[in-house]
């Protein structure tokens, strides 16, 4: 396709004659070189005339400005290079959280648009049309200025929920969760081995009963057994967990204590293990036709080691709840209004595009595919899992990645509502203070370019792997 004219000797005039093509290319290259030479000369002269720094020394100079939101230690005495790192990390954080929520909302809305339910389909359509057809910047202004800014002060915070559950003794709680996960897994695998419908029904009944018993045991067991001074592994807590006011969103946050070093490493290792297992299970299915309970085993791999770590760490793991002290809220984690508005706006905006991609993906799977699968005797959930989703994903993934990139690039709109992302800190404040415009704009563009190119590379790899192999 790409070289439609090169397959056979071209007829007269069908493409530029060799020497003509060569001349055109040389002329273009010379013109570009000449323009570039002129531009470089002008830049050098203008920079000298305006006293603009032309090296990267400013990166190690003291920044002298404060930032209220930073993932790493930063103060006014830090360097501009440090400020750049803060901005980069903030951009990546906004992008990651935004992508997470946009994907969930987008898939839900996309499926809802195809729903048989008229109400769900229409509501999803209205959402998509309204969000897609108004500028993102307008939506950010709306969330930031018209919704979050007029919220009441801390003493009149909107609080959610009024009542909640808490875990007074995390050690006992984690032990119980581990036991519950293991027991339900054993039960499920035993049940899957049972053949025959009557016995199978009995198996379902037994597992349901067992689950209920486990939940009751978790809730009230320690109280009955008189374990320590715990009143129950889960306990009804009076008061709210989540507060929303004009200073931001306040959420409970786990304080890990001694487990702080181990827990992230163990969660990462389990995630790698679970991924590896699902690949192995897929190869088993394709080679031997053995279908394994991938979801349950993955959950087991994810939950049990983390729960055991928390259990081993004992009482050092606690959850820090936000509480009203004086005129402000203390404890927990504070999500600043700028960050909240940015993530909210970006997720809702990108979700409307993802919804359309998901819808197109599902519609792209020919009806004959699911009919053929039904004729083979597969059940509906199996058809969805093995026939429809894999084919839809081939259509969905490339534009979905594009939307993730768009979200990352759109996070630069943070500059309009004052969230310290890469552009706001570096192209805004640092550029104003140092005037090193060429270096700063080049670094910023390079960051976004590297992110885009890495994603494109991954995408090309995926496309080559997933492309239909045609004869």
């Amino acid at each position, binding site marked *: *396709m*790409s*070289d*439609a*004219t090169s397959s056979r000797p*071209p*007829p*007269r*005039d*069908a*493409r*530029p004659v060799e020497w003509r*093509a060569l001349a*055109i*290319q*040389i002329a*273009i290259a010379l013109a*570009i070189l000449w323009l570039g030479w002129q531009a470089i000369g*002008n*830049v050098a*002269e*203008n920079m000298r*005339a305006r006293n603009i720094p032309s090296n990267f020394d400013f990166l190690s100079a003291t920044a002298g400005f404060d930032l209220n939101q930073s993932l790493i230690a930063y103060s006014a005495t830090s360097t501009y290079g440090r400020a750049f790192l803060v901005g980069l990390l903030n951009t990546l954080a906004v992008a990651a959280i935004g992508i997470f929520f946009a994907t969930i909302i987008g898939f839900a809305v996309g499926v809802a648009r195809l*729903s*048989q*339910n*008229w*109400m*769900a389909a229409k*509501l999803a359509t209205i959402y998509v*049309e*309204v969000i897609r*057809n*108004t*500028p*993102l*910047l*307008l939506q950010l*202004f*709306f969330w930031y*200025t*018209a919704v979050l800014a007029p919220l009441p002060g801390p003493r009149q915070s909107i609080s959610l929920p009024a009542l909640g559950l808490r875990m007074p003794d995390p050690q006992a709680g984690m032990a119980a969760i581990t036991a519950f996960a293991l027991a339900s897994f054993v039960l499920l695998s035993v049940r899957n081995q049972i053949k025959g419908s009557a016995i199978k029904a009995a198996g379902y009944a037994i597992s349901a009963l067992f689950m209920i018993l486990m939940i009751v045991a978790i809730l009230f067991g320690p109280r009955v057994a008189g374990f320590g001074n715990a009143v129950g592994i889960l306990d009804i807590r009076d008061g709210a967990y989540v507060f929303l006011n004009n200073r931001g969103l306040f959420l409970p946050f786990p304080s890990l204590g001694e487990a702080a070093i181990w827990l992230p490493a163990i969660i990462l290792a389990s995630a790698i293990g679970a991924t590896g297992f699902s690949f192995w299970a897929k190869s088993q299915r394709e080679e031997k036709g053995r279908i394994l309970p991938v979801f349950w085993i993955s959950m087991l791999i994810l939950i049990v080691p983390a729960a055991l770590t928390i259990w081993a760490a004992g009482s050092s793991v606690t959850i820090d709840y936000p509480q009203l002290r004086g005129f402000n809220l203390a404890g927990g984690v504070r999500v600043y209004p700028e960050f909240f508005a940015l993530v909210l706006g970006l997720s809702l905006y990108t979700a409307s595009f993802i919804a359309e991609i998901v819808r197109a993906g599902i519609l792209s799977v020919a009806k004959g595919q699911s009919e053929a699968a039904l004729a083979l005797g597969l059940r509906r959930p199996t058809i969805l899992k093995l026939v429809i989703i894999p084919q839809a994903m081939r259509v969905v993934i490339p534009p979905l990645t594009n939307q993730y990139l768009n979200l990352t*690039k759109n996070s*630069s*709109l943070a*500059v*309009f509502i004052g969230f310290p992302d890469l*552009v706001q800190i570096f*192209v805004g404040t640092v*550029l104003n203070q140092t005037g090193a*415009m*060429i270096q700063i*704009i080049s670094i*910023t*563009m390079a960051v*976004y*370019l590297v*992110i*885009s*190119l890495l994603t494109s590379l991954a995408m090309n790899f995926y496309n080559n792997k997933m492309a239909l192999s045609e004869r």
Partner: protein
Amino acid sequence: MGATSSTGPTSPSQPSFVRSAMTADRSPPVPTSGPLAWLRDNLFPGPMSAVATILGLLFLLWVIPPLARFLFLDAIWSADNGDACRAPEAGACWAYVRQKFGFFMYGSYPREDVWRVNLTLVAGAVLTLWMLWPDARGRGGAALAFFTVYPVLAFGILTGSPPFPIGWLPSSPEGQIAWMVLIVALFATASTLFYLNRYTGWAIAIFGFIAWSELGSWWSSLELPLVGTHLWGGIFVSLLVATVGIVFSLPLGIALALGRRSQMPVLRFLSVMLIEFVRGVPLITVLVMANTMLPLFVPDSWSPDRLLRPLIGVALFSAVYMAEVVRGGLQSVPKGQYEGAMSLGLSWWQMTRLVVLPQALVTVIPGIVNSFIALFKDTTLVAIVGIFDFLKAVDTGRLDPVWAGPKISTTGYVFAAIFYFIFCFGMSRYSMMMERRHSAGRSR
């Protein structure tokens, strides 16, 4: 079995397997049409669906009454200042929008000269509608006027400087604007030439040039006051940025897409570099670059106008996205079309213009319109380099002490949202209509 059925009942008395009493009536079939059936099929087909319907209804009940109260019932429709709107029970303050409409529309353009803006907008709207109306006569002529004569005259009318650059140096402000006009005109002529028959194109270009130079002296005798671009603002600037972006991005995008698929390695390399570079960075950084670095690239006296810089940035940014859309269209043209054109002895230009592009562009109409919609929404970002577009005007208006109040910002944003929605939604519907018309011949 066979024996029983072939002999049949032989005795006069009823055989045991024949019924002696009528069976009970079956209940009538469930209706498959009518409002009840519709409700059952579309709102309550199953328990989960019923729950979703009820949740949706509750959501609507929760959202619609306060929204209706805010937008219509409690809204303030006319007032001289913000006192009435500051009352706690007041809804949207439409009086503020009415009062500020001039500012939202024209920015700080001198009030006694806004007829010039209106004239430009009306002429642009007429030409656009004419060009886009599916069965209108002379659509090609309208398109030609829109892409060549209109931009030149519009710049002349809006700035008040004669649209003829000879004699103006780039260093004076009028000269800069005139050079903007010249660039637009040259570009428009070049892209039009590409579409027309070669001789017609040249004839139009030469006659246009003569008429244009005559126009220059006549224009000076009109003595329209000069209005600098620092006074331009509002909806008018948003539409201007969008129009310039659209007018430039389509031809530039086609050129880049052809360059990317070219046989010449230098051309291909340059196109790929430009496309991938601009696509990889956010529009804000492109705008900041155009604003701060463009003046460094040219000699000091040539420093481009402050409105021209973001226009270049926006046009470049939308052109590379357009290039990718057009490339998709070029790839969808079957190989046989190229081979057929070559076997007829067409040159590369003829083949591209007459065979490949018409088919490629029709296939990607939805993608092109999507780029236009994205471009229209992205015009809001020019505020980062100090251009007073519509959204910036709305965002500034809420700070006016006469009107400032808790409902003002929401009112302004709702108004802006309605404006953008009408334009973007209209464009998407238009593209769907065109898509249907074009696919009518292909669908079975």
